[in-house]
């Protein structure tokens, strides 16, 4: 039933491509220019328009990391309605800087991205739409490193269907 440890076939990229605003941000971040939480996290159009996980990660300049036990992803196993699927991402890691939520079978795979200023806990709850049964994937950046958790949500038909 549970897909926590199941590897999803997303395809791997071998090289990290730095480009676009995400790449620039990563650069600034690296030299500590954007530590204050006032980071102007620009709405990453390429990432939010991405049609596949590969495309989205590419736009964000991230290589899909392995599943990590330090990320707790809470989603319902079955959602009666795909228009509201609650998602909670929590991490036991210190210095969480960013949390991203993806739905791998949605037309736009990246649902939301959260920049976590220092002093804010590494957790967030929100609600996403799901067009069909799919994997919800949480990507967490902490101390400059990326971690992942993913789980399947079954979207079913509820009510009389009339």
């Amino acid at each position, binding site marked *: 039933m*549970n897909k926590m440890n199941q590897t999803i076939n997303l395809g791997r990229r071998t090289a990290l491509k730095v480009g676009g605003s995400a790449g620039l941000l990563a650069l600034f971040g690296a030299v500590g220019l954007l530590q204050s939480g006032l980071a102007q996290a620009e709405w990453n159009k390429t990432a939010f328009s991405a049609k596949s996980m590969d495309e989205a990660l590419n736009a964000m300049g991230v290589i899909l990391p392995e599943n990590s036990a330090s990320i707790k992803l*809470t989603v319902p196993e*079955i959602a*009666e309605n795909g*228009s509201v699927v609650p998602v909670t991402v929590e991490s036991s890691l210190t210095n969480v800087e960013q949390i991203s939520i993806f739905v791998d079978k949605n037309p736009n795979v990246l649902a939301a991205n959260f920049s976590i200023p220092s002093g804010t806990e590494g957790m967030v709850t929100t609600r996403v739409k799901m067009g069909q049964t799919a994997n919800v994937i949480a990507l967490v950046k902490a101390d400059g490193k990326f971690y992942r958790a993913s789980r399947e949500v079954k979207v079913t038909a509820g*009510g009389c269907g*009339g």
Partner: protein
Amino acid sequence: MNIKSILLLALVANGAAYAAEAEVSDSDRIAQYREMISDGNPADFDEMRGESLWKAVAGPKQATLEQCDLGKGAGVVKGAYAELPRFFKDTGRVQDLESRLLSCMSTLQGLNADEIAAKPFATEKKPSDISSLATYVVGQSKGIKMAVSVKHPKEKEAYEIGKRIFSYRAGPYDFACSTCHATSNVRIRMQDLPNLNVKKDAQAAYTTWPAYRVSQGLTRSFQWRLNDCFRQQRFPEPKFASEATVDLTMYLAVSANGAAFAGPGLKR
């Protein structure tokens, strides 16, 4: 949050191994889903909208609804819904909330009741004033025990007729309300169906309407609930706030007596 849900949430939190081993039924998983979406109800926005409509001057008579008598005296909103439907002397009939709001909008504000009744429900494009007003009024009975009276002969009669409508089979599918709502522990697709002849189920169902429907992105009133049940029953359309709908509401409301009102709810 009930114990079951807490356990379920704990299960989810603990992840793979535990969830796989435990015998969790699909119905439990649905219950878990409902628990997870129960916080942050967008019906609150409809309540806010209703409250401002209640206090806003409107209609040819340029009046607010603040003098509307919902059964507990002019202007008393708190707890009014927990005692509806009831018999009203001034109109000489038993009225549910929406029927009563219709009376108030017509007598106090001079609005055309027929026009309101012709398009009483919110659509994707247009909110419904009477529906938002209902959401506001029910919100003012949150936590108050349902205490609907059948002392007046007309109230008793409404209850009896409502009970009969509940098992009235007709239409191309031979359905009655009771076809789906008179058996315990059954579901339609994934949806658990309350047995409305059983007090506990009737209470849980009635006290959580009106409700925000996540599948529609709209807050739905009790009249809408009945209307859509009849649609799926393959019946013709019940007239808005008609005696048939009020009587059926009376039967269901009385069945819910004793339970604290918990709406507006949040549903699939």
